[in-house]
């Protein structure tokens, strides 16, 4: 990264701290300043806490970029006379190309769990849940032990925490499907409104945040909103964990400030270190399976921030960047994505249940140009009429590909799946 965009690691622990302390030790909590974050939070009124979140400008890191403070206020305000309230950490990280929550929970679980404890206090939650992706079961005990460390620091913070393991369904990461899963039901998304802040888990007001969002909340309380905003852009304060995979020299999870040029993430010495074997960049799939393909020209122009990406019809999503070289067939990638959505649709609503399969079949049997009209026609129905984000965005990547013929029209001779 250029000096201008170089940031000290905040979400990821400093290597020195890692060398000095175990990830689930009280020492780590202190070295990371999280005891201070907890004490600051417990020294505030809840009104003041919500103001702090608002001042920090934290947007949800799960993909929707919803302002965290708005959720807090809504749960706080939810009429809960005699009602329980819940806090939930969404650790069902399942978006293809996304693995930053795993790294965060493996290397420094105390950070997001401190954020969870603070958030629970901020909204008056009586119990918190961690919904953990089934494949991350090795993190179940560490999370429980990390919670004990947090509780040991602020004994008055003690509220029950329960870790629930997912069973492998992508859709269970959708917040209302996740509630159904915790309740022991099929993970089918619910109709919104009512929103989770009003009627969430067990029909109670519920605050649900992604792991990384809670990590940011812990940092905002540790440093205060002003220092928190030192990095990132004015509209999107803070840093972001990106998961880079594909044809780069050093795939992995890196912490970058919002607003950094995309090229710097791909080329940076302290990030992905450029393309493998000197290949030329063809495209980046930004935001995961439900993300957007950007051409190499667009990548060269784009900055990693919501307003800047909107110009390309793209978004940060879950923070995934899948990098493709010039020899990769993107129509084949589109087919892989279509298989994924057909496999992961829960089957509840017609546009997604049948639409995802028809998209998959059309990509298997025809070239993109042959069925372009039908693909667009079906994508519109799915986008407009599906119940949840899965069906609404299952064709986003495909449509972004169709809108960029430079990414597929040259693959004329590749036969089925290509054009």
């Amino acid at each position: 990264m250029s000096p201008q965009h170089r940031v000290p690691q905040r979400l990821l622990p400093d290597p020195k701290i890692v060398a000095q302390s175990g990830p689930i030790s009280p020492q780590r909590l202190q070295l990371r300043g999280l005891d201070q974050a907890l004490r600051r939070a417990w020294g505030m009124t809840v009104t003041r806490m919500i103001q702090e979140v608002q001042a920090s400008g934290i947007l949800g890191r799960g993909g929707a970029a919803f302002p965290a403070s708005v959720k807090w206020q809504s749960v706080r305000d939810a009429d809960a006379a005699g009602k329980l309230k819940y806090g939930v950490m969404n650790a069902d990280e399942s978006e293809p190309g996304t693995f930053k929550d795993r790294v965060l929970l493996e290397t420094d679980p105390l950070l997001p769990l401190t954020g969870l404890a603070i958030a629970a206090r901020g909204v008056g939650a009586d119990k918190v849940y961690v919904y953990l992706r089934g494949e991350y079961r090795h993190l179940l005990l560490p999370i429980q032990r990390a919670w004990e460390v947090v509780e040991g620091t602020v004994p008055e913070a003690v509220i029950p925490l329960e870790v629930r393991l997912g069973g492998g369904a992508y859709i269970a990461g959708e917040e209302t499907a996740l509630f159904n899963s915790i309740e022991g039901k099929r993970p089918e998304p619910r109709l919104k409104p009512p929103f989770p802040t009003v009627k969430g888990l067990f029909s109670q007001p519920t605050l649900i945040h992604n792991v990384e969002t809670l990590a940011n909340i812990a940092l905002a309380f540790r440093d205060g909103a002003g220092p928190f905003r030192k990095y990132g852009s004015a509209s999107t304060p803070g840093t972001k964990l990106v998961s880079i995979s594909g044809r780069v020299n050093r795939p992995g999870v890196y912490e970058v400030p919002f607003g950094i040029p995309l090229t710097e993430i791909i080329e940076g010495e302290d990030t992905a270190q450029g393309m493998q074997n000197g290949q030329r960049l063809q495209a980046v799939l930004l935001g995961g399976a439900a993300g957007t393909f950007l051409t190499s020209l667009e990548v060269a122009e784009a900055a990693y921030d919501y307003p800047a990406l909107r110009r390309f019809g793209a978004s940060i999503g879950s923070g995934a960047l899948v990098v493709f070289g010039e020899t990769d067939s993107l129509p084949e990638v589109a087919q892989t994505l279509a298989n994924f959505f057909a496999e992961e649709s829960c089957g509840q609503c017609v546009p997604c249940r049948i639409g995802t399969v028809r998209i998959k079949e059309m990509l298997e049997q025809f070239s993109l140009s042959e069925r372009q009209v039908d693909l667009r026609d079906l994508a519109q129905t799915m986008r407009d009429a599906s119940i949840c984000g899965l069906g609404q965005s299952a064709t986003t990547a495909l449509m972004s590909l169709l809108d960029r013929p430079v990414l597929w029209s040259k693959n004329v001779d590749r036969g089925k799946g290509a054009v």
Partner: protein
Amino acid sequence: MEIEESRQLTIDGEVCQVPAGTTLREACLQVGKEIPALCWHERLTPANTCRACVVELEGSRTLVSSCSRMVEDGMVVHTDTPRVLHARKGVAELLLSTMMDDVNAPELQKLAQATEADPAHFRVGETLVQPIRDDNDLYVRDYSQCILCYRCVAVCGEDAQNTFAIHVAGRGLQAHIDTGFDRSLPDSDCVFCGNCVQVCPTGALIGKTEWSLRQENEWDEKKIQVTETTCSYCGVGCSLDLHVLNGRIVKVTSPYNHPVTQGMLCVKGRYGYEYVQADVAHLQGS
């Protein structure tokens, strides 16, 4: 006493006032706009799965399902924009792409006609065509005609019967109604109340008698006479509609507006009618 609050909204340019707690679909009906729906049923909690009832709500990124979205003050709703019509047509085409043309699904066929849907548009692969399940004397399951409206699940569960014998299993296009490990109905928790058959919008669940007569081309809606009576089995007093074809009872239903049954029956009321038309001479052993 609770004072009834009202909500003001605009539907296709017409300002109207409806009580709070009204769904958009009901509100549309009140101003004379009938919105199609396949999964919605007057007696059941909206499942909101068919998406045929979507309307355009200003300020909403996606279309909204009018069967389950409650009215709010100031909503501006459009029921027949190109986007709405496109989505409805898409729903019809997608459902038709999974089944044969000869299905017994009047509501779906009506939607297809109204939207000028092309049944072949998305017939590019997998269908739900499968063998009929005929494993008991009371009703037949033909899941080739199932549109997964969830009505049978709702009626078997909390909306009426509280038996919970069936639920949706599998995901994506493999999602289907399951008796629990795909058991036959007699081996399942089914109590044969037939309420699922009553609410099924297609021929996916159908009484064995009706199914057999249809197989032999002897089922004729026009010739069926309906006789109202009260069930003779117990003291509850369920209202029965006996559907009589050629002097024989071929189906029993109950009206949804009946205060006792609200359309729902038990196995005796629904299927225990054969004694009425038993061969008396045979019984007397003459």
